[in-house]
């Protein structure tokens, strides 16, 4: 189904050619906004929907300015219903649109699970390629933002378990920009989890050139030789800090941002652990059946011959993340990561 000129009715659509891509110094949430605008500019099939994504520009402002720029046909405030948002996206995607839907917080994604698992993930498979489902479901996730109950979930494992969907997590403005562009271009469904704790933590310079970063690939953020620290999302921040701490103790830590939680780029992870022989996995989620469990099990299986210590894991506790007065007890911190690395190194 051709998608050219399909929005020609829409007077607000911008189709003018552009000059040199501009460079912006932006936060992660601004990078998301830049990527959305770029994708909408480049491809009229891209539409944005969700609660408060229009005039309000999203409760975190990720969609700010999009409605003004691309019009209310392409930036749609939906009624308050998450199953609806996901299921309508499946329908739209089947018709050649590329919906980018926002679930306001990951704690509200559960009602959408049926449409994600039974439909988005399977539309291509069930129809043997006759229909497919190029949709992105974006949602802020994780704790540390002093938020109400249910606003701090890290249940990425639920989605990483399901065949047929990609689960992608950026941990910097640059990766948010590049990975989101690729997620939108990708012909299959992507759950795109944005660490809300990082939304405004740091700024980076981004060239708004519309170039995506590869999905299904890990990013080695810091080379090292003594221990491999593996993380994704907001924990990447503490993990990098931990690596700097370890450096002070003359320990050289390699830091890898997994970024794509399914499929996982095991080549990169295994190559690193083969080199260092020690491995620490850091995540906010509870431990059982988590992405950390998955990575640890693969490291142990394939790494039996080169692992010099058991895989260390730093997780949230096996409890719901506490309401904010006590959440710092729950969230992995630098001290815990450093200690785990030291344990791995001291193991004999």
């Amino acid at each position, binding site marked *: 189904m051709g998608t050219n000129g399909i929005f020609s009715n829409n007077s607000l659509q911008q189709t003018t050619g552009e000059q040199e891509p501009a460079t912006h110094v932006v936060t992660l949430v601004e990078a998301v906004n830049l990527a959305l605008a770029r994708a909408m500019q480049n491809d009229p099939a891209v539409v944005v929907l969700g609660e408060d994504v229009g005039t309000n520009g999203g409760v975190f402002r990720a969609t700010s300015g999009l409605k003004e720029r691309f019009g209310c046909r392409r930036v749609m405030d939906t009624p308050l219903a998450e199953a609806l948002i996901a299921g309508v996206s499946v*329908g739209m995607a089947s018709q050649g649109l590329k919906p980018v839907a926002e679930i306001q917080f990951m704690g509200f994604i559960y009602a959408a699970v049926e449409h994600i698992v039974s439909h988005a993930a399977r539309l291509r498979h069930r129809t043997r390629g006759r229909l497919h489902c190029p949709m992105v479901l974006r949602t802020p996730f994780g704790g540390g933002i002093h938020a109400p109950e249910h606003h701090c979930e890290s249940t990425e494992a639920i989605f990483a378990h399901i065949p047929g969907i990609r689960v992608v997590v950026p941990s910097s403005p640059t990766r948010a920009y590049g990975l989101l562009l690729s997620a939108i271009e990708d012909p299959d469904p992507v759950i795109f989890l944005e660490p809300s704790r990082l939304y405004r933590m740091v700024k980076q310079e981004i060239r708004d050139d519309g170039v995506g970063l590869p999905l299904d690939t890990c990013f080695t953020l810091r080379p090292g030789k003594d221990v491999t620290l593996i993380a994704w999302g907001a924990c990447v921040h503490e993990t990098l800090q931990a690596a700097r701490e370890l450096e002070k103790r003359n320990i050289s830590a390699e830091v890898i941002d997994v970024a794509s939680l399914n499929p996982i780029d095991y080549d990169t992870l295994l190559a690193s652990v083969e080199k260092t022989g020690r491995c620490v996995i850091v995540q906010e989620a509870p431990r059982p059946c988590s992405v950390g469990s998955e990575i640890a099990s693969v490291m142990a299986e394939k790494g039996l011959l080169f692992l010099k210590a058991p895989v260390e894991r730093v997780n949230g506790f096996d409890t719901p993340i506490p309401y904010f007065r006590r959440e710092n007890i729950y969230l992995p911190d630098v001290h815990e990561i450093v200690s785990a690395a030291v344990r791995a190194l001291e193991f004999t």
Partner: protein
Amino acid sequence: MLYTKTPYAQHQFIDTEGKAVGNLPSWMENSEQLLRFYRTMTLIRLFDKRVVSLQRTGQMGTYASCLGQEAIGTAIGCALQPQDVFVPYYRDQAAQYLRGVTLPQMLQYWGGDEWGNHFTGTAAGDFPNCVPIATQVTHAAGIASAFKIRGEKRAALVTCGEGATSRGDFYEPMNLAGVWQLPLVLVVNNNQWAISVPRHLQTGAATIAQKAVAAGIEGFQVDGNDVCAVYDAVQYALEKARAGKGATLVEAVTYRLCDHTTADDATRYRDHEEVSAAWLKEPVKRLQTFLHERGLWNEQKEQQLVAECQAEIEQGVKDFQALPLQPVDDLFDYLFDTTPPHLIAQRERAKQKAARLAGGNRHGH
């Protein structure tokens, strides 16, 4: 209190005796159309029976019969235009047939092979049968949204049972269709039962049609065993949708004359008398009488039609039986646009396993 008014009024054109009711619409003078209805309903009734017998002899999986509901699917299939998208539930054999889904393909689907969802022809853009009840209604709202966004004069038509109307997945998209004025037609096959749960335990609403009030859209009941009534209503709703005038809920009142599926035994939960009474209202005989009385039908035509249909069905069964088992590769190659390396590796293992199993050596000893 401001409830939605429905401008659509007549809910029956042919009564249970096969007699005309009230003013017939002009399109009913078109005997081609009436004969097409009759041919389709006859074919589907015979086909349906054949699939049940294939199931009984172990050649088919669990099958959901449409016995008694042929009028609804037939009316829908005839009213839809090629540019529309049809989002079926699992008793839409008649509509699917008219959309171009072939009999072997239907058998392939119910026979346990996803290739049965790979429709071609006009149905190439239609949705596959939907198993998780009511979820297809939300997809249909998304499809209708796409049409609306692009300013296309197309409609999405979705079907479900009355049991499905108890789910959020029925209500949420209907509500959206009201706010967004979507080109969406919802046809509820109210066949009085959701497996063993009777209509009156499904909702306290006096009609399913009035659920439209909650969404601010038009809703009305039609006699779902009168193919002309259903056709007229669906036609009305589709034209309204294509003209950008919003969504409609059509409750087609019918009866499930069969077990829920071949895995069900309806005698556990409903009386023989109720079923016998329902047989008196069934749609095929009713249209036949009507055609008879109009001089459009006779015994000889009936025999000829049945023979034709049987031949078509037997050819379909033969073609189905000749279909190859789907390649193992296909389990892996249609999950993503580009099959990722880990699935390529698993595909190799699966092929080896398939070879082993084909060798009859299931347990490796």
